């Protein structure tokens, strides 16, 4: 992380930099600072130069026609005009006309991202102008446009291969993320205003850290829900991860024992249950365990219980049930992945232990477990992260229920499912965005701490 900020000599260092272009560039190169491609066109890289000019014109056209307006609106998140019309009977009615703030926010973010992209493009164009100047001065071969195209398949292959995927990530991952994070600093929600008249859904404002204060305060309604949801999320993630890990490891060890027969059959039995799409198996579990579901019916039919067991209707039952069902989903998966690692433990270690007279339990704690922990720490972190963000299990099994912690969160709600409810069901986008950011913070802290203190961190480079 540190070296992002620290400048160190790079293996990709080149003399063609913007600073050099400014210091050592001739008049044409300096003209290229303003009119992109000027240097290239004058020095016979016509096609490339025209491409630069064309892009610049497009950008300027966009900024003049939409961009600057978007940015100015972005500051206040739009405005409304009050339009009054005279009615037939002599009175006035009025309505407010304007773009909804959410659009303004989106256009603003898009403009900023486009501008950043253009700055990057501008730097490349300036460097290119300086490069062609230097090539001319030193009398070296000036590459033609066709050479540049060819380079895309060779030295610049990374540009070719990354262009489309990056565009996709930018539009469908990065841009929405920035957009959503900015929502955390607005009052974008359908909460009723103090005078009880209107809501903030069409028109909202920048409110700084107000939503963060709401979420983090211990006394407020939302704050109380947040801390209890966070606590349950962590408890859930720890139990789900550890129990799955232990269960999966025991199962893997038992199946891989030398003397266990029908290894393939056992493995197939467990794999079959995860091969079924998760939402199908979870929905089935939900139906089976409901008050009038198959399990309760069978148990009542056999006379084992009088009343239905409250799998989903009692908070403690529901919490235990989701963890247990998650074991059903997760153990075979862990078993499968740990089997591979188990088979990689050097056999000499076990033979040495045998010679020394160690029994099975000692071998497990002295050899198997340390080895597994060392190798699978990254896997454990990924699973833990996955569990904190485990939307499917909670949403499909309990929907966050039963009961309510506050006005939105239920007893088994994780941060993610609560986030879903807040944004999709309740339109409390600002609080949802804060929850999303807090989830990220929790995950970042947990992953960093575990990763740094793990054995595999220091040897990480050794694997490459």
């Amino acid at each position, binding site marked *: 992380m540190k070296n992002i900020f620290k400048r160190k000599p790079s293996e990709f260092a080149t003399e063609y930099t913007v600073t050099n272009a400014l210091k050592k560039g001739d008049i044409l190169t300096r003209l290229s600072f303003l009119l992109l491609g000027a240097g290239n066109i004058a020095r016979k890289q016509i096609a490339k130069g025209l491409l630069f000019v064309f892009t610049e014109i497009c950008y300027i056209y966009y900024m003049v026609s939409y961009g600057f307006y978007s940015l100015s609106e972005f500051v206040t998140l739009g405005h409304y005009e009050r339009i009054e019309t005279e009615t037939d009977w002599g009175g006035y009615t009025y309505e407010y006309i304007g773009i909804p703030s959410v659009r303004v926010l989106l256009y603003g973010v898009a403009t900023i991202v486009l501008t950043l992209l253009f700055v990057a493009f501008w730097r490349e164009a300036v460097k290119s102008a300086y490069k062609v100047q230097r090539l001319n001065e030193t009398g070296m071969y000036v590459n033609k446009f066709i050479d540049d195209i060819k380079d895309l398949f060779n030295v610049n292959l990374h540009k070719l291969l990354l262009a489309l995927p990056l565009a996709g990530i930018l539009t*469908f991952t990065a841009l929405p993320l920035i957009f959503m994070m900015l929502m955390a600093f607005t009052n974008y929600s359908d909460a009723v205003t103090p005078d009880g008249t209107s809501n903030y859904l069409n028109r909202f404002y920048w409110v700084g850290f107000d939503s963060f204060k709401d979420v983090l305060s211990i006394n407020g309604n939302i704050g109380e829900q947040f801390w209890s949801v966070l606590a349950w999320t962590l408890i859930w993630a720890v139990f789900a991860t550890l129990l799955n890990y232990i269960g999966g490891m025991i199962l893997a060890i038992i199946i891989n024992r030398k003397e266990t027969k029908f290894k393939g059959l056992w493995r197939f039995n467990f794999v079959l249950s995860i091969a*079924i799409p998760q939402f199908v198996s979870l929905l089935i579990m939900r139906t089976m365990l409901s008050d009038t579901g198959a399990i309760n019916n069978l148990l009542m039919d056999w006379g084992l219980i009088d009343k239905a067991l409250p799998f989903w209707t009692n908070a403690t039952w529901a919490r235990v049930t989701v963890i247990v069902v998650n074991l059903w989903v997760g153990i075979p998966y862990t078993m499968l992945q740990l089997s591979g690692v188990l088979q990689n433990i050097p056999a000499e270690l076990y033979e040495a232990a045998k010679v020394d007279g160690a029994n099975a339990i000692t071998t497990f704690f002295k050899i198997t477990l340390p080895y597994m922990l060392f190798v699978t720490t990254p896997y454990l972190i990924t699973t833990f992260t996955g569990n904190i963000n485990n939307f499917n299990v909670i949403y499909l099994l309990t929907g966050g229920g039963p009961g309510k912690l506050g006005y939105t969160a239920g007893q088994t709600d994780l941060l993610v499912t609560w986030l879903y409810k807040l944004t999709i069901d309740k339109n409390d*986008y600002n609080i949802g965005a804060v929850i999303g950011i807090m989830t990220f913070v929790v995950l970042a802290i947990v992953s960093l701490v575990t990763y740094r203190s793990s054995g595999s961190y220091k040897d990480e480079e050794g694997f490459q």
Partner: protein
Amino acid sequence: MSKKIKVKKKFNPRRFVTNSVVHVFLTVLSVIWLFPVLWVILQSFRVENNGYGSYTTYFFPKELGFKNYIRLFTETDILNFPQMFMNTLIIAIFTCIISTLFVLSVAYTMSRLRFKLRKTYLNLAMIMGLFPGFMSMVATYQILKTLGLTEGELVRVAMILVYAGGSGMGFYMAKGFFDTIPKSLDEAALIDGATKFQVFTKVTMPLSKPIIVYTVLTSFMGPWLDFIFAKVLCRTQKEYYTVSIGLWNMLEKEYLYKYFTRFCAGAVLVSIPIATIFILMQKFYQDGMSGAVKG
């Protein structure tokens, strides 16, 4: 593992007990794990009482038949399963093509090519991966709405874009695989005058069949398994529902009684291809894990 040397052992009562316990234990676990699977399959063939009712007080159905499967495909007025199936298939095919190209390109670039912003990209991908996946869902919806992709036929395009658009982030598995291919092969080809692009397509790709198959299959499976994004994008436009939203709807209170056995039939139908794919890939999952750890 070298040669196995067979040594005849005397009957050892302690070992016999341990082995019996282990096998009984595995049998019990297998029953627990297979019980729901078996139950769904049985329910999907339950046809007495018109297949109505979300449960029975007996485990084995009294009458078995294919009626639920037939009705799933013929009674399409309320929940049109064949159409959902086609929707999902079309979306899955396009998603699969785009994602596979994206994932393989990014993975190869990260594994083999060295350029200035590589580390930055890797770090950013890791950081973005820590945000809850659908935190950006509302924002994505707004973007698609601005692009005019949330109404009518274009919803399908929107779903493809959502599933495939960000797929360049999921390159770790494939990168791990490419990392294991010896670099000397690339160097040999480069010396012979191949361009880097040719190395990618003619040297690396033919050696990477397992990871290509894996990527194709996982990205094909995505649209069949996701239902959050599909639900948000389709809202009430029933004609664009994918299989997973359809199945989810069948278990809603208003449909549960009539549709439960048909849900089971649908679940079995969707599970068969997915399960086949998964079991075929099982070995690969295992190898991928141990391979990635070995580096």
